[in-house]
């Protein structure tokens, strides 16, 4: 089997109405020379690690070393446990709190699964777990959705590095949002074109996103951004499932992302020399941390 290099090739190879997740699973088997049961076992292990991180994250309320994060996931989760009448349903509450929980767990050195990076590791797990619980999706279908999500990420990654330092946060949380949108459509039995459109719509709305983490840490804006991108994925998937299409085909959207990534100033590409990282509050924190984090002989 030949590699799938872009989305047009994916559309072509799925034309005989084969599901996208199966196209990706067969491709991985042939390229990695592994049995499908072995690959699904690895993915299932990742799924378990993701769910364990969510659980642990919700149970733990502890400030990070920098003091910027660590106590928020339980707040939003509580809101959905206690209040009677809420404007959004439980699915939304779970996505927001699960993404926060994973990212807070990541920040306090918990075990997570990079998806596609550590800074964006909360988005895909949050939507898969929340939909699974609220819509009754089987574990096998969740694993299928992970292959769909991973395949979308893989095709983007073949064209541009998924690194904030190269193309800004559109390449990390942006791509994770597109992966999550595709995963949702897959879990809800959308067709191939809807899966690709969901990813396209999600990507198109997140282009040019700055990567300006305060003090160079994966905390602000990264942690809360994971929740936002989870909800972003819901909107994209709902549009796609309703039959709304992206006017620009996804391969061309990636052309545009690459161009925008190149145009973005290096100060907002993970260097922490611009944006939020140089606000008054951020600079004050930098000073505080400098004194706090003096390495000493121990």
């Amino acid at each position, binding site marked *: 089997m030949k590699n799938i290099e872009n989305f047009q090739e994916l559309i072509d190879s799925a034309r005989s109405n084969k599901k996208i997740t199966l196209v990706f699973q067969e491709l991985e088997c042939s390229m*990695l020379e592994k049995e499908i049961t072995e690959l699904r076992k690895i993915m299932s292990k990742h799924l378990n690690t993701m769910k364990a991180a969510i659980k642990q994250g919700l149970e733990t309320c502890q400030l990070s070393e920098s003091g910027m994060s660590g106590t928020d996931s339980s707040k939003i989760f509580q809101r959905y446990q206690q209040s009677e009448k809420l404007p959004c349903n439980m699915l939304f509450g779970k996505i927001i709190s699960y993404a926060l929980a994973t990212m807070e767990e990541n920040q306090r050195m918990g075990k997570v699964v990079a998806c596609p990076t550590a800074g964006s590791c909360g988005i895909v797990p949050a939507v898969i777990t929340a939909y699974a619980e609220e819509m009754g999706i089987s574990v096998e279908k969740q694993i299928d959705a992970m292959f769909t999500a991973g395949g979308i990420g*893989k095709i983007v990654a073949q064209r541009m590095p998924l690194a904030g330092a190269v193309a800004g946060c559109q390449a990390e949380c942006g791509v994770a949002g597109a992966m999550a949108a595709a995963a949702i459509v897959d879990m809800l039995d959308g067709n191939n074109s809807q899966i690709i459109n969901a990813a396209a719509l999600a990507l198109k709305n997140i282009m040019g996103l700055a990567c300006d983490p305060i003090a160079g840490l*994966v905390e602000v804006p990264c942690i809360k951004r994971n929740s936002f991108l989870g909800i972003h994925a819901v909107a994209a998937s709902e549009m796609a499932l309703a039959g709304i299409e992206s006017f620009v085909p996804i391969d061309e959207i990636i052309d545009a992302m690459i161009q925008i990534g190149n145009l973005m100033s290096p100060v907002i590409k993970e260097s922490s020399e611009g944006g939020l990282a140089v606000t008054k509050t951020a600079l004050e924190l930098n000073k505080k941390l400098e004194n706090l984090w003096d390495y000493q002989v121990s």
Partner: protein
Amino acid sequence: MKYISILDIIGPSMIGPSSSHTAGAVRLGLLARNIYGSKPGWVKFTLYNSFAKTGKGHGTDKALIAGILGFNVDDPRIRNSYEYAKNESIQIEFAAEDDPLRHPNAVDFTFYNEASMFISGKSLGAGEVEIDNIKGFKASIRGDLHTIFIIHKDKPGMLSRVTEFIQEANLNIATLLCERNEKGKEAAMTICLDSVPSEDLINSIQNISGVYIVRSIDVLKK
């Protein structure tokens, strides 16, 4: 086009928070310990630039120590690696430096015991790493291929003698890097192989007259 696997996109499972500053640091520690070759009594880490400035918040210090102790990137013991080092009576020292000429995520290891050894490396992003200096010799060890590292006397015929043994073992050389510091003194070879070298092969190389140090460095787990 390089094949990117779905398992590169979803995965690895790792201790957070950063693939470059945490998982990468563990991997650098693992490679460095492997190159030093035995349990050190004392290790000094010098962190540069971003590694120095944001290291604490990313647990880079704990991750480097964990690597020295042989823990993998997803091992929860990373969080308490200071204590594990203490239990193994390994002394730890950290220093931080600002040096625009060095890579943003660079680290120097100095190992002490009966033998001391200086090793430098850098974390390239997404968990990829490279050891680029061993005892003052240029190296390129990334943990993606089985590697033999040799320090030997700078004299004629060393390379051919080493490669002869490798050929006899029927192994294919992927890359080869040779360097010497001064004519007639010491020189080094980094040989990356497509398959695992046997202990016999390493011993044969060790027994070549003029070979001072040989290390067989394993591929890092994905």
